[in-house]
């Protein structure tokens, strides 16, 4: 169960942290005026301050106003069912490469929902990898990552 208030607060903290990082990082580049004009850290500094101040405002505003629950258990579950496999898919790309990762992802998604015959998920998985290969490697000449597994096999 997530309330609007905690979601608002979490978002404001993320944006605020980003703003703070921008401020700190901009100081390395020099701020203010030099012989060459406005120094390159000035603009990021201003932007960072705006982000930080805006985030603080949103934090307070969100904390005071948004009290209702906006993410119930069932919504949370559905989100997890989408996001966790997607994150795993992205996470394993450096290990096993794009093609096996995409094939496993499609296979997993279909097998999970269909329960029963595995023929369709297997075919869909092979089809997905093949479609990617034809589309990118062949048509656009973009080489997709092979991963550690690919290197090991010598691709």
């Amino acid at each position: 169960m997530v309330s609007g208030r905690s979601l608002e607060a979490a978002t404001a903290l993320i944006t605020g942290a980003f703003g703070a990082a921008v401020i700190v990082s901009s100081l390395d580049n020099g701020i203010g005026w030099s012989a060459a004009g406005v120094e390159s850290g000035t603009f990021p500094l201003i932007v960072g301050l705006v982000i930080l101040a805006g985030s603080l405002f949103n934090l307070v505003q969100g904390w005071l106003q948004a009290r209702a629950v906006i993410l119930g258990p069932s919504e949370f579950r559905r989100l997890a069912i989408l996001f966790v496999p997607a994150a795993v898919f992205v996470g394993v790309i450096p290990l096993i490469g794009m093609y096996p990762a995409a094939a496993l992802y499609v296979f997993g998604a279909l097998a999970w929902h269909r329960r029963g015959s595995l023929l369709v998920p297997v075919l869909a998985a092979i089809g997905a990898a093949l479609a990617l290969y034809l589309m990118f490697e062949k048509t656009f000449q973009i080489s997709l990552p092979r991963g550690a597994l690919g290197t090991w096999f010598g691709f």
Partner: protein
Amino acid sequence: MENLEALMHGFGIALSGNHIFLMVIGVLLGILVGVLPGLGAPNGVSLLLPLTFGMQPVSAIILLSSMYWGALFGGSVTSILFNIPGEPSSVATTFDGYPMARDGRPTTALATAFGSAAFGALVGVVLITLAASWVAQVALAFGPPEYFAVYFLAFASFIGMGGSPPIKTLVSLAIGFALAAVGIDTVSGSVRLTMGIDEMVKGVSFVVAVMGLFGIGELMIAVEEEFHVKAISSKVEWREVFRTLVGLPKHGWALLRSAAIGCWMGITPGGPTAASFMSYGIAKRLSPRRANFGKGEPEGIVAPEAADHAAGTSALLPMLSLGIPGSATAAVMMGGLMIWGLNPGPMLFVEQKDFVWGLIASMYLGNVVAVVLVLLTVPIFAALMRVPFFIIAPVIVIICTVGAYSVSNSYLDVMLMMGFGVLGYLFKKLHYPLAPLVLAIVIGDKAEDAFRQSMLMSKGSLGIFFAKPLVTTLILLGAALLLMPTIWRTIGRMMPRSEVKP
């Protein structure tokens, strides 16, 4: 009548077999991304970008802009038939479009939507034809301070008129600016904001941001809201289409008003989404049949659709003539222009006449092609909505991942894309607008350069922004727009509220 001549020349370019073919492909792909939740015009256009690198710029822009028109139309199809807006800008179409379709008149609802949309787009294109080259001519005399003032005006109008909470818009905009600054500083050549990651020197590509924010983010919103696809008959009765289109002029006043709102919101980057909501709200307030709104009132479809398409089309006016995109999709297209080696802005009208007028002519044709194709393909794309979501979702995730990776063959971009996805979800959920962020990534550097060049000219005095009448007017106008929300709120407090906007 120099413009008309140039337009005729443009038709000569746009009316080739090759370009008509690209229009058809673009529109069909556009309808596809418009119909699918999670994919929209901004990521559709970003995905197509790598395809266009080998093309002539004019062919490339015809393909991309046709996709945009297709996506605008496709979004309305699902709004009306399934009560699921395929695009954020067609949310307002669900208010009356779906009830009308549910009550057994899906053809009437679709025809009303497409007819009004086409009218709105036409008004937008006519405006571009008449005004774009004039604006460009004025802008040729602009120096850095004027440019900065125009950028300021654009960003201020987002905050003042975008319809989202102003401080949230400001944060979204500023994050975009910060991301634009990542990498090598174009003025001094020093490296900025890499946060200790060497690879960040190449900067954050707007394509990566768009894939995450609009792709993964929207997908998460879509699964969370678990949709129930209740199929309404998607058969199109041609006689009814004809009857509806002939009857449209009786909403003439609503059409004109909505198109005007759309054009205004498109040129000052309020964007199509804000335009359609605003137009719907105003139509409801002014209509004598107010009580019927939300139950299938034709004007409730006319107003958002005409405004949506007028805004979508006229968003290209400032992109072409000033180099400031009026919507997220226009921002992506402008990114494409820069990749093709064109410099968006007034010089386009001098140096790239074929490109500019070919594009403008193709906008007339592209919208005609879009109306015809969308009517012909409604049943096919409606059938697509019955494909279970658990199949569509992995496909979209894979497309976005590969799309982000292919920008510069970098896995870091894929990680960033997932990060943007989470941010996009949070932002959507909490009503932070996404378009300003994308816009700021694309033109942040230019705005900063304009500011720093102005400062060099004035030796560090801000007085340069108040030195000449034009620049002062622009800055003051921007400041006024910035204060709009506060002014509205004050007025709202003084007057008793009689009704609530939908």
